[in-house]
């Protein structure tokens, strides 16, 4: 009868780990670059509506946001519908024109993303849109979520 001998590797099997830091650093840089740390603090309640036929905004650098919704008041209360640009609530709608015009000068291909609460009224949006027309920022985007199928 043949004698079966279990073959065993002579040398120790080790995975070379010297390249691991490089791999990890590569991943690290990827996530560092993609991370957007600065987010505006929302002063209005925002609950986006849903739609099906939506498109992605590929160039995020071109986007400037306008938030619209009921104002958050102290004590978990909600106030009237307000417009927020960057970090501040804009009470005088006429100021939007200058604000957006300045942004347009900085970035001529500006896309204005309107993030509007689903229960806010259309009238406010019209007023803001009229200001945007005056500012010359014509490319807009109604921010919506994808409808769950």
């Amino acid at each position, binding site marked *: 009868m043949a004698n079966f001998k279990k073959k065993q590797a002579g040398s120790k099997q080790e995975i070379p780990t010297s390249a691991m830091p490089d791999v990890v*650093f590569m991943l690290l840089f990827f996530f560092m670059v993609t991370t957007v740390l600065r987010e505006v603090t929302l002063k209005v309640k925002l609950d986006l*509506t849903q739609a099906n036929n*939506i498109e992605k905004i590929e160039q995020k650098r071109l986007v400037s946001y306008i938030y619209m919704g009921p104002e958050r008041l102290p004590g978990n209360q909600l106030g009237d519908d307000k417009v927020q640009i960057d970090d501040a609530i804009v009470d005088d709608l006429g100021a939007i024109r200058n604000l957006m015009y300045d942004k347009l000068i900085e970035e001529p291909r500006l896309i204005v993303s309107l993030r509007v609460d689903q229960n806010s009224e*259309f*009238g406010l949006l019209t007023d803001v849109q009229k200001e945007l027309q005056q500012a010359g920022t014509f490319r*807009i985007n109604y*921010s*919506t979520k994808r409808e769950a199928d």
Partner: protein
Amino acid sequence: MMLKKKKREGADINGSSMADIAFLLLIFFLVTTTINVDTGIGMVLPPPLDPEQEPPPIRERNLMKILVNSQGLVLMDEEPVSVSEVKDKLIEFISNPESNEELAISPDAAIVSLKTQRETPYSIYIDMLDEVMAAYKDLRDAASRSNYGVPYDALVDDSPQQDQIREMYPKKISIAEPDS
């Protein structure tokens, strides 16, 4: 006296913990990253209207007026319809397969006018806009499939083919100002 030169050892930084540090940073950025793709319905606003300038004449048959009130009830060319019917009606209006006298002359002449009340909730307005966009998407997909065998989205962005389909079915959507 004998001066003995000491042989120095090469200074080494212990690099074994580098991977740990890198991992820690990696995990931090992994947790903080939100890869949220911005999605939405893209529109282009018209330039502000000169008050002295008359609006350009539009033939009545090329214009589809959609009125939405604050309860979400819809009128299309003075006819009450339900929201689910809007898309099919629009496709019929834009493409006009039977050359109906009352529907658009050609797809590129068709204009969809969307009008709501000031009190209309934003979600209802977006629902309507979504239906209009869906109608155009279906038409463009159909045209793209019959010409190139692929849906519109599969065409290369800004390619001549995509431009051609876009010219066939331009999105002419007018957002009217609410009266009240």
